[in-house]
């Protein structure tokens, strides 16, 4: 579980990793199940796979969120925000709407000046918990379906 969570955490630190959507979290949950079934030579039920997947994704996602908040509070630097803003401006520039680009730049500046607010912290936490749970659910169920090694445990045992 720790290796899967570490994988999710490590990927989240890479700039532009957000383009991978939920793939790192699903892959991290599947990695945890792959290693668990490999080391203990057993087949997990779907329920157990889901439990392990959700815990792995939550651990990795929350660790990344805590580090992001700590860096913001200590150094006033938001991880990957610069990359996200550059990419947003580049993508929106295709619409040929200079007024919209100016508005976006103003919004980015206002966000930077505002710093980290309590509502942003709460939204970030809720978002991390819900999305990690969904990705862990998917990764856990798919991992249990794909990695079967050895005797299956009885459901509910």
């Amino acid at each position, binding site marked *: 579980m720790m290796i899967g969570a570490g994988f999710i955490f490590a990927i989240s630190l890479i700039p532009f990793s*957000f383009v991978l*959507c939920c793939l790192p979290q699903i892959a991290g949950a599947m990695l945890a199940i792959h290693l668990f079934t490999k080391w203990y030579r057993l087949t997990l039920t*779907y329920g157990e796979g*889901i439990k392990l997947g959700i815990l792995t994704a939550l651990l990795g996602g929350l660790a990344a969120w805590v580090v992001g908040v700590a860096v913001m509070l200590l150094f006033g630097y938001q991880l990957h925000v610069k990359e996200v803003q550059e990419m*947003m401006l580049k993508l929106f520039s295709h619409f040929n709407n200079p007024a919209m680009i100016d508005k976006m730049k103003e919004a980015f500046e206002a966000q930077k000046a505002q710093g980290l607010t309590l509502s942003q912290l709460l939204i970030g936490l809720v978002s*991390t918990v819900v999305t990690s749970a969904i990705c862990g*659910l998917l990764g*856990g*169920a798919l991992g249990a379906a794909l990695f079967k090694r050895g005797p299956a445990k009885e459901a*509910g045992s």
Partner: protein
Amino acid sequence: MEKVLTAHASRIAWLIFGFFIIWSGLAVAAALPGGSWLHRLFSPTCHQAPERCYEFMGHPIGLCVRCLFIYLGLALGHPVFARWQLSEKNSLRLLGTAGFLVVADVLLESMGLYDNCKSTRAVTGGLFGFACAWFTLRGLSELSFNPEPKITRHEST
């Protein structure tokens, strides 16, 4: 017992269906004025690139086309698989086909055969979410279904 299990799976399925419909609805609501906090809610697991999102009232929604349809596929798949009994082997075949189509879509687009085709991303993403639903429904039903009656021990004095 089989009937009880099916009824239980059906309840779980409709609960999950409701959750993913609300989740997708929130993504659409992110396009409304004042919905920027909803964009932040979806940002950890979706790149939200505007050119890859559907627009609502002239603004991009909070999820890219593929992510939105994965969630909608998941929502639809749960009640369908609660009613329609599919074997594990066939579910794995369906998942393999859906996964292959997603990978093929990504590869073909990156090779430049077509550019930003939202309909292929919607179909492949939706099918993938639909295929995943069989596994998540089975796991969640297993986790929440406890056929064993609770045993209360009465100490005799």
